[in-house]
């Protein structure tokens, strides 16, 4: 996989999302629960705005000095017996990891959930050289068995129901029990335990790397990250270059913001902080450690008006409050990063060409900005994207261009404007029902496919105004 998850056009993806009743129901209830959890936690602290302010100051300082802190991080990792590879592109990162896996002659690789490895398409790279790659996060494992992309950055299999999951387990793993979540999870425990014990290489993502000590922090609930980093002798951690904090004290604040904002927990079950290779006489942990730091388009965002998008700590709070995500679901965004942050980030990382619709997949209600624990002005960045698309790139969606062009010609010709506003009601009568147009002709079709359009009034505004001036019907 790469950042894009399908070749289907935007409208088709939206349509699929809207027609998927189970997904919409699941998303809507998940949003409600996540949102309540976050608000409860915020309220309990009482000074949530101070926390957001602190989070935002830590992220700003780190990104302003990212070269300094990455240098420090790499020095510390080396001091603790690890290797550091700086990868400017996805290809460089994949090539390095492929070489480590080859050198170890590794047959089996176990992974923790990691968005950046999805982004660079690591699994496909490793499978090509014949390594078996096992995703160990329950949601990711389900998706891997079913060859389906994630639809949410915290609960990736949100769009699947238990019957689908049971069927997948049956078909791919010979499962023969019920579809209760407990039995399904117990089966995953039993199956994956064997994978953990026999894997040659463990691959993790990284929530926060700590520059001062060369440590990597992983935030999980299932215990799979503990397994992946305790048992195999070789460990590779892959991080987007901005997943970085100066010190343990900063890590602590951001972890507190992350777990509260993501799942409404004070802390998740496991906050695992790993530094280099295992020490002498220790048994658990790797004796060969690699940290891969990935740019893959991020550096282009530095020094621009979008720099604060790199402050994101991947909590999905913006996704969980977004009314657009609620209706179309994650896959409609055609990016592994969906929702408001995805709509901001995806065009920056992957270009406007394939993602020009995303900044429009927002009602600009600003709920995302309000929810963000590190105060990224998401809706303002979406507006800025639209401005760039329209003004500089001339890439606004075709239908909008034609419509606006037509509107301009029509509205700038007083005779045509006057005539059409007068005849509109009559002309549209065949499609009108109870003062609404449900399945309009021509240019109205795009609109009325998804919602009704009010029928033109009995008189145009101009006629009404003239009458009113003359003291007629108002």
């Amino acid at each position, binding site marked *: 996989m790469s950042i894009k998850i399908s070749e289907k056009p935007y409208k088709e993806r939206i349509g699929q999302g809207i027609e998927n009743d189970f997904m919409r129901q699941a998303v809507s209830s998940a949003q409600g*629960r996540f949102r309540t959890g976050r608000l409860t936690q915020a309220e309990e602290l009482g000074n949530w705005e101070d926390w957001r302010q*602190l989070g935002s100051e830590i992220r700003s300082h780190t990104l302003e000095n990212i070269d300094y802190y990455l240098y420090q991080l790499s020095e510390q990792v080396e001091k603790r017996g690890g290797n550091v590879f700086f990868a*400017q592109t996805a290809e460089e990162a994949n090539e390095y990891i492929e070489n480590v896996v080859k050198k170890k002659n590794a047959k089996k690789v176990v992974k923790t959930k990691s968005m950046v490895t999805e982004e660079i398409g690591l699994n496909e790279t490793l499978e090509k050289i014949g390594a078996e790659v096992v995703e160990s996060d329950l949601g990711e494992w389900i998706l891997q068995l079913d060859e389906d992309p994630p639809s949410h950055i915290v609960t990736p299999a949100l769009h699947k129901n238990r019957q689908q999951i049971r069927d997948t387990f049956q078909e791919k793993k010979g499962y023969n029990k019920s579809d209760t979540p407990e039995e*399904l999870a117990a089966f995953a425990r039993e199956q994956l335990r064997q994978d953990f014990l026999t894997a040659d290489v463990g691959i993790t993502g990284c929530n926060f790397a700590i520059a001062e000590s060369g*440590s990597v922090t992983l935030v999980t609930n299932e*215990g799979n990250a503990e397994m992946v980093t305790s048992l195999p002798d070789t460990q590779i951690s892959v991080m987007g270059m901005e997943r970085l904090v100066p010190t343990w004290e900063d890590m602590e604040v951001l972890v507190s913001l992350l777990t509260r904002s993501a799942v409404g927990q004070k802390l998740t*079950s*496991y*906050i695992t902080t790993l530094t280099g290779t295992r020490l002498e006489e220790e048994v658990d942990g790797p004796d060969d450690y690699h940290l891969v730091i990935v740019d893959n388009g991020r550096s282009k965002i530095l020094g621009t008006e979008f720099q604060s998008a790199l402050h994101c700590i991947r909590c999905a709070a913006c996704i969980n409050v977004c009314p657009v995500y609620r209706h179309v679901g994650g896959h409609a965004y055609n990016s592994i990063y969906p929702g408001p942050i995805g709509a901001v980030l995806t065009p920056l990382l992957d270009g406007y060409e394939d993602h020009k619709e995303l900044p429009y997949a927002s009602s600009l209600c600003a709920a995302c900005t309000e929810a963000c624990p590190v105060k990224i002005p998401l809706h303002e960045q979406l507006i800025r994207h639209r401005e760039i698309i329209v003004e500089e790139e001339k890439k606004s969606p075709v239908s909008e261009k034609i419509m606006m062009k037509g509107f301009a010609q029509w509205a700038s010709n007083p005779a045509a404007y006057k005539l059409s506003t007068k005849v509109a009601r009559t002309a549209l009568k065949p499609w009108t029902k109870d003062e609404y147009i449900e399945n309009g002709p021509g240019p109205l079709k795009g609109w009325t496919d998804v919602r009704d359009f009010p029928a033109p009034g009995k008189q145009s505004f101009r006629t009404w105004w003239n009458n009113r001036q003359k003291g007629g019907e108002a």
Partner: protein
Amino acid sequence: MAIQNREAFLSNLAANLGRPQKREGVKRPEYSVAPQREVFKDYSTEELIEVLKEHCKVIHTDFVRTRKKDLAETLKEVLDGYEAKSIIASNDRRNQDYGLDVAYEQFADTIDVHLWDSKLGKENQVIAERTDVGISFSDITLAESGTVTLMTNKDNGRSISLMPKCYIAIIPKETIVPRMTQAASKIHQDNENGVDAPSSVCFVTGPSNSADIEMNLIVGVHGPVKVTYIVVD
């Protein structure tokens, strides 16, 4: 070999930021607020224990309080509750202070007891995998979130708290602090003073869990299914 491609990578970042690369002279600023230091600021140990006890209900963890002299007995009761036939424990020097060395010898009459032995290498993991209950000490205990902080060393492997189906954390009362802030500050201070961070610091909060299937909370996924905290006065 150890560090590759750094120069080109970092100079590109500095160029995009419109300045020369920084290697030194960066100081963390005084942030304008510090809300993390306000949480349970003036709480006594007793009040923090109350917070911890309450939060154990949220994180599906059994809470037990005992005195040092009764620890062996209390531990046995919890083990019997788990119907433990085998245990694995850290080879902690605190075992002696808390009378656990003697207790483990007595337990060995009726159940399998393995103390982590670095000389056995990977065999420790194999034993942990087939053992019913893991037991270790919390190094720093976070009242707010109900978290035990486990620092790895050669006598205290991570597998103890991870592989068995049940886990028991022994929490000396004096390890209890308000929240993660105090634990992170200590490790930060140690680092400043030239004391390296342990190879792993695990902040463990109750049993493993997942909500990946239809948002249903499942307690007990890859790590332990049941957890008990024993606070010792």
